[in-house]
């Protein structure tokens, strides 16, 4: 409703008035948050379209339902733990507890790597069982979804790694703490995406 009020204002009236207006130059903080949310919207659009394609394609007669590798359940658990670790880091950042934050981040990074490794194991199992991407469309989508999801985690890891390197610099602490909360949001989001994808892969 606030937005509606904003875009129905008559801007030619009340020149000079500043009240309730946007105001000062916003420092990098909230810009980072806005940017992240816009980015999540972009990724959502992408995954949503992939899922629609998946659903549409699955209604064609040549679709074969495949048994998902059991290790995916384990991986899901690992990713949940990674997300928890990131949340702990984020909480620590808010408390300005740098040591606790660093440890949680480290745990989160390790768990994420473990998840990615687990996904690779799942790929390997499929390949060894003779399921290649060109074999049937369900498998192709499986590789595609898991691959893209992992790629986004890798991107997050790169960002996390950069944070790790700059952590020693005292003058950047404020920004680092802020970045950690953004990382946590990103991880939760990717966990959510994974849960939806996993449910979709299980169901069909």
């Amino acid at each position, binding site marked *: 409703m606030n937005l509606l009020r904003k875009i129905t204002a008559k801007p030619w009236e009340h020149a000079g008035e500043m009240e309730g207006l946007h105001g000062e130059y916003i420092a990098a903080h909230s810009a980072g948050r806005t940017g992240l949310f816009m980015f999540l919207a972009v990724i959502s659009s992408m995954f949503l*379209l992939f899922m629609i394609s998946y659903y549409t394609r699955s209604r064609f007669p040549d679709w074969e339902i495949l048994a998902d590798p059991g290790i995916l359940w384990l991986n899901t658990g690992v990713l949940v733990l990674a997300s928890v670790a990131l949340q702990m880091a984020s909480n620590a950042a808010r408390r300005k507890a740098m040591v606790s934050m660093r440890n949680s981040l480290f745990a989160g990074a390790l768990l994420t790597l473990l998840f990615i490794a687990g996904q690779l194991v799942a790929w390997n199992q499929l390949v060894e069982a003779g399921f290649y991407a060109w074999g049937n469309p369900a498998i192709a989508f499986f590789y595609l979804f898991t691959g893209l999801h992992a790629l986004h985690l890798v991107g997050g890891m790169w960002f996390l790694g950069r944070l790790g390197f700059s952590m020693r610099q005292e003058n950047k602490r404020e920004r680092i703490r802020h970045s950690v909360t953004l990382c946590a949001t990103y991880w939760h989001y990717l966990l959510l995406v994974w849960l939806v994808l996993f449910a979709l892969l299980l169901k069909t």
Partner: protein
Amino acid sequence: MAYVALADRDHEQHLHDPQTFVTKYIWSQDHKVIAIQYSLTAIAVGLVALGLSLIMRLQLGFPDTFSFISPDEYYQAITMHGMIMVIYLLTALLLGGFGNYLIPLMCGARDMVFPFMNMVSYWVYLLSVIVLCASFFISGGPTGAGWTLYPPQVILPGTPGNNGGIVLMLLSLVLFIVAFTMGGLNYVTTVLQARCRGMTLMRMPLSVWGIFVATILGLLAFPALLVTGIMLLLDSVLGTSFFMPALLSMGEVSEHSGGSPILFQHLFWFFGHPEVYIVALPAFGVISDLVAVHARKNIFGYRMMVWAILAIGIISFIVWAHHMYVSGMNPYFGFFFATTTLIIAIPTALKVYNWVLTLWRGDIHLTVPMLFVIGFIFTFINGGITGLFLGNVAVDMPLSDTYFVIGHFHMVMGVSPILVIFGAIYHWYPKITGRMLNDRLGRIHFWLTLFGTYAIYLPMHYLGILGLPRRYYAMGDTSFIPDSAQAMNAGISIAAFFVAAVQLIFLFNLFWSRTRGKPSGGNPWKATTLEWQTPQTPPVHGNWGPDLPVVYRWAYDFSVPGASQDYIPQTMAPEDVPTDPGSSYDGGEGEHS
């Protein structure tokens, strides 16, 4: 004011003033330099696409004449022409070029909020252009499947570039989308977070609104192209069957089976239609600002203009299948998409009315930018009207896939935005360089371009009604195409060559005026918006000197009754506005009667 400066100091820590040539002009993080890099690259690749269109026109106008145009090369030319013009020229120039230049200046920011990412955006864009152009040099050449890249033919023998060219094309598109996303996140976040004090959403100039909404459309629509691109790439390289059905190619049954070509079309146009508005909305915004400045009148119905931009942006996501009326999709979709398509005509028509109504009772200065504005309005009326034919499913039937379609989308999406781009360049060139473009050359350029392009595209509509199919290398003998149609096609080609040659005048003007143009001063058009109020012209790195501007009013205070000058800059406080003697005008603080 004090705390503006305070917040500013915090910002200046991140603002490294570039020293060397390389950091200033090559690896620059300054939005203005990036804007120019984007623009020059887009114009350069656009000239390549212009050249390709001339190859097409040579063949169509004078078939059986030029030995260097085989069917393969013809189809490669149409494909690359379309793709370059839509994506690599128009999208890149309007958003990467104009968006980059105007958003921070018009919002009162020092730069984009993520300047490093902004720089990377340009370099990835350049890489995408290089990858695209590389396909001209590989064996088999670029893809010739038409810019829509429809499977299954796009990756099958019988279509040029079916193995190498298409892979490079898809890779280039993926790169472009990455670049666009990096840039787009910047534009949106800058508009949302970095407006200066007093700049409410409704005080923003319509250029910013247009670019802002177009960027959001792009951020949400380009993923559709990414999704299709990735799946098509896998079909092509790994032999998956996302889009590829079982088929017989060159006498042999292919390895694919079960895929859905029409799924590709749905996904492609889910991107493709918003893409039209990704190009159109910034153009709408820019034209609104130009028309107000040069008619010395506030834009008529500003709020309606903003709402129309938003409405068009939203509806543009539910009209895509009007590109697919004859695609074999479920015919009942036709009812829905014809209705939504004609509904979107209403806000679009309102925008046209409001431009004309802005001129009405205005003080119209027939400057070169204003000429382009009027040329645009005429062209856009024409192109919009033919859109009503093609959007209406039954009317579309006989016209689909004919020259009528070519005429329509070149009027509405080719000539119209190009006229806006020219108008905008004549308008903002003084801010970018500190010099005016040559007025006489500008007028010659305008007249020849307007009449020349109309000579190209008006007849095409009628050839389309006659039934000339598009994407035909040669018409050959038919029972229904008279010789006069071929003569007209030759005439169109001559007009096309003429128009292309005329653009040399513009290019010359661009370079000549850079050093020899008349010095312009900071605000030659007496405009109100922030970019004209910078302390230096051209604006230096950081744009605003020590203090950020403060905005007191909307962007369109022209010819305000009681004020003694016909424009009041956005930065002018009500108490500073010079008034006519005896006037009760208070600078705008109260309501106008």
